[in-house]
């Protein structure tokens, strides 16, 4: 009986300790799957003595849902640019006042004070890239620089399509293909988007934003919605995987580091942000994930391949489209399309 009591107290105290203030030297990072360089985290741990724990999510919507549910205790989260205003207006993140932090001058001028976060009060750039799709040119030998092969696939691609499990990315791409505006509030146009996606659905193998690399390599998918950095990693494993730059327009994104309001280790989060504004660290992350970063001077630390790769060097003819932050009305319409699609 007594031993029971002692045991219980012992374990409760362990639990409480691990749950809270033992977090003196801890940092909890919540990032997209397979998007954080393990080397980078190790370097940060070595330099600061702070132990980093990494959890992952697969879409901006999942991140938003998690934070809104109070799911927390994360110190660093990485939303895309179009979700940054939502996080700010919903009070989910706190100010970091980046201009006052060490290393702020390293941020490239064109990335300073972006429209979604004027003054960099809440965020700094993490990685920037494009969203398009990877295609296995061994399976399909035709012209792939158009969304037609994705949304109205030829027979060799039917049944081998993989789309992201994220409404804003899928709907965004469909809107471009149909030539409509982003953040669309027009129900007729959104209805056409739904028709397009429903017609495509029978040829789609799976809606999943994770495991892209594996799905391509194993042959489960011959055409997969993808981001440019990940596409480069796929091409490195098999040169037949090419990244498409659709003529209709290419989606561009910028992911950002932000600190949630209920972060337990704000000072450590700030340290991480200052760490990421150093050119060699930004380069280390770029070398892993294969995306461009927003830090000046990182160029000389980048792998040779990143300088010349087609995934990073966007053809000058490509039309880059930054998806803006959408109004509640357009988000509702997007949700409507998505729910009907997944039913």
């Amino acid at each position, binding site marked *: 009986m007594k031993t029971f009591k002692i045991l219980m107290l012992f374990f409760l105290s362990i639990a409480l300790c691990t749950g809270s203030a033992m977090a003196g030297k801890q940092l909890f990072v919540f990032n997209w799957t397979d998007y954080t360089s393990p080397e980078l985290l190790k370097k940060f741990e070595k330099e600061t003595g702070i132990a980093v724990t990494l959890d992952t999510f697969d879409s901006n919507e999942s991140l938003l*849902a998690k934070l809104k549910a109070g799911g927390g205790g994360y110190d660093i989260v990485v939303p895309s640019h179009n979700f940054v205003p939502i996080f700010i207006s919903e009070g989910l993140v706190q100010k970091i006042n980046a201009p006052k932090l060490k290393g702020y001058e390293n941020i490239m001028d064109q990335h300073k004070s972006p429209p979604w976060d004027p003054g960099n009060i809440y965020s700094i750039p993490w990685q920037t890239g494009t969203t398009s799709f990877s295609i296995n040119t061994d399976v399909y030998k035709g012209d792939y620089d158009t969304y037609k092969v994705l949304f109205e696939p030829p027979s060799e691609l039917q049944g081998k399509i993989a789309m992201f499990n994220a409404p804003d990315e899928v709907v965004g791409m469909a809107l471009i293909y149909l030539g409509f505006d982003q953040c669309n509030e027009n129900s007729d146009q959104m209805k056409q988007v739904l028709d397009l996606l429903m017609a495509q659905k029978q040829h789609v193998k799976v809606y999943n934003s994770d495991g892209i690399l594996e799905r391509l390599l*194993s042959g489960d998918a011959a055409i997969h919605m993808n981001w440019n950095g990940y596409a480069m990693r796929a091409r490195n494993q098999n040169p037949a995987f090419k990244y498409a730059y659709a003529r209709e327009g290419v989606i561009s994104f910028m992911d950002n580091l932000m600190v949630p309001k209920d972060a337990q280790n704000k000072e450590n989060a700030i340290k991480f942000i200052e760490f990421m504004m150093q050119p060699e660290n930004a380069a280390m992350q770029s070398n892993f994930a294969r995306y461009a970063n927003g830090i000046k001077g990182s160029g000389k630390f980048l792998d040779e391949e990143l300088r010349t790769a087609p995934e990073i060097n966007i053809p000058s003819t490509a039309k880059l489209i930054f998806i803006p932050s959408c109004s*509640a009305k357009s988000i509702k319409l997007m949700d409507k399309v998505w729910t009907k699609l997944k039913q």
Partner: protein
Amino acid sequence: MNQAKREATRRWLGLGPAILLIFIFMIIPLCIISTYSFLESNPYGGVKPHFSFAAYSQFLFELDFDDNVVFNPAYLMIFWRSFVLALATTILCLLIGFPVAYYIALQPPSKRNLLVFLVTIPFWTNLLIRTFSWILILRDSGVVNNILIWTGIIDKPITLLYTNGAILIGLVYTYIPFIVLPIYATVEKLDIRLFEAAHDLYANRRQLMRYIILPLTAPGIIAGGILVFVPSLGAFIAPNLLGGGKKLMLGSLIQLQFASSRNWPFGSAVALLLMAVVLIAMLIYILGPARKTDMGEHAG
């Protein structure tokens, strides 16, 4: 008087903690989601403190793109799929599980215990792992396709994963131990003399099964059936891992509402509906076969 009071105090001390814990962390949360189902949803997640029937009307109706109220069969489809899959799972489990339970009960005691133990082990291993193993088997580059291609039966892999069939296999695999054990328990209790009596009366095997074995093992069969049907309805892992995000069942639908779909009221409403079905199934069991067994025991 004192004794009674002491009894009462001891009762509350003993039962109190457990009941309190379950009350606070189970009953109250259930009340909370019941409330949520009547509130308006916040597009960014969570709820707004406005009363609204939207969650419930969403089952059947929706506002289409022109804001007209239209009948929406999609969620009924999900219900239907869950119901059919759960039923199919139960029937399959019964067809396989009954012979197995019966056969095991027939064995000599030492062998019997070993076999029961072997049935129980997978039951206690991690469900995620067990379902995951079917991904390895059914995917395009998986074991089945590899064998079929290697033996030359086909030359392109057939799509086995991400289908309703894959989910069915996953569900059967998950829940079949649940049905073997209750049936085994009832078969084990069968009185041998009935068999002998039937044999003496020149009954053949079919009659033996139909008139003696099945009626007597019915409680076990029904208990097992419910133990399979109810959890299958609300299953999450099988449709999530093996269904590819295209084939939603009730469990994955609920989880989605609390994750990226951010529609807590609707998720709560579906959850409550699932609970209602479960309670109805249990009521049917308690008022039906369980009561019959009670009376049987008293009479016999």
